[in-house]
């Protein structure tokens, strides 16, 4: 049981930042911010041990409001900065907050290689299916046929599945949630933080200002009701037929596997090299 909003606001949000925050009314990033802070509060971690790293975009503003160490980096390179932080100070808990453009377009290469290396990081990828901050251009996760300010007749490219991509690239923990399923999101963030290895949590978040407006999906309430209708637990998803799976999204833990992390393997290499040096072989 976590504390109420009041306790969390006092303890975890920065007192010298101006509230209400910069995001649009009803933006899912605010819900994710609350969820992240609740998960951090219930994980019992020391504030001084947590580092939040973000790139550019609407999601880049998120770590600014949390009273932990935070790094606001260049576009797409949040994971590389996080990798450096984790390698130099392995006892820190590093959480990376990225948008879909940040993670899969500009930093797409970094995402797959970070997943391949399996360093002990937590990546929260906020998928709003568009570039929200710059005016609703299509991003790599914009679904086929949907409209954007740069695709007025419908988008003609297929979209990335962030969860499947990071699962294939070798992440240890992959999960998906939406901002409507907020209790599930609390638990998944906590699991992702506690998981040893690269953990990815894809959070579907409504961008009613840009994506919703171009595609006539209504307000954020309508989009969150859509998520409620579309989301199915992974267990039920596995039993569904191909026809039923259309327009449905599996939610929950998609992959959870134990693999040696980069730091474990690196410590092993250091031990071997030190042994050989003692023997005088190198």
């Amino acid at each position, binding site marked *: 049981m976590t504390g*109420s*909003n*009041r306790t*969390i*606001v*006092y303890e975890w*949000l920065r*007192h*010298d930042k101006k*509230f*209400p*925050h910069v*995001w649009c*009314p*009803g*933006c*899912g*990033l*605010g*819900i994710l*911010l*609350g*969820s992240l802070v*609740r998960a951090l509060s219930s994980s019992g971690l020391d504030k001084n041990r947590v580092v939040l790293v973000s790139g550019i975009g609407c999601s880049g503003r998120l770590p600014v409001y949390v009273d932990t160490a935070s790094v606001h980096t260049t576009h797409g390179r949040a994971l590389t900065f996080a990798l450096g932080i984790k390698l130099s100070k392995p006892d820190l808990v590093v959480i990376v907050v990225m948008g879909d453009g940040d993670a899969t377009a500009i930093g797409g290469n970094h995402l797959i290689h970070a997943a391949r290396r399996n360093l002990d990081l937590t990546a929260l990828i906020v998928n709003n299916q568009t570039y929200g901050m710059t005016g609703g251009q299509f991003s790599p996760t914009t679904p086929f046929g949907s409209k954007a300010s740069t695709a007025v007749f419908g988008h003609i490219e297929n979209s990335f599945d962030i969860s499947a991509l990071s699962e294939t690239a070798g992440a240890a923990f992959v999960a998906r949630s939406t901002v*409507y399923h*907020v*209790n599930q999101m*609390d638990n998944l963030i906590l699991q992702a933080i506690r998981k040893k290895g690269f953990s990815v949590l894809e959070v579907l978040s409504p961008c009613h200002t840009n994506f919703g407006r171009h595609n006539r999906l209504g*307000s*954020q*309430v309508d989009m*969150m009701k859509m998520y409620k209708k579309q989301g199915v637990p992974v267990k039920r998803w596995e039993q569904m037929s191909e026809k039923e799976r259309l327009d449905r999204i599996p939610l929950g833990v998609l992959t959870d596997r134990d693999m040696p992390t980069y730091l474990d393997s690196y410590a092993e290499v250091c031990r071997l090299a030190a042994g050989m040096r003692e023997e005088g072989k190198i």
Partner: protein
Amino acid sequence: MPSGKAKSPRSGRRDPKVVIYPAWCKKCGNCVAFCPVQALEEDEWGFPRLARPEECTSCRLCEKLCPDFAITVGEAPVIKGRSAEEPAPRATGDRSTVDRRHSPERVPPVLEHHRDEEESDREET
């Protein structure tokens, strides 16, 4: 707002205390739309209001779905020796000046203050 002692006829729990902080509210309507028992409703300015407190089960969904931390379910903390008229402490360079129980931007007695004003208006008319 009901006192914290009485029990709700529906849930048998203690009456909830839903505190809305209008200065942070952007009137997005998440809390009103997703309340499972429709205990909240919009007032004439678009802010949420606990219209049916006896229905509220303190499930805290409104608190969690609020992107702006503008709604809190639970007992409001009593701050000793501080009146509603006194301005909230401001954050300065030195964090130690900020009351630990209190965010600089949040003033729980706001609603009470509003209510006092409304009552005095009514008395005048």
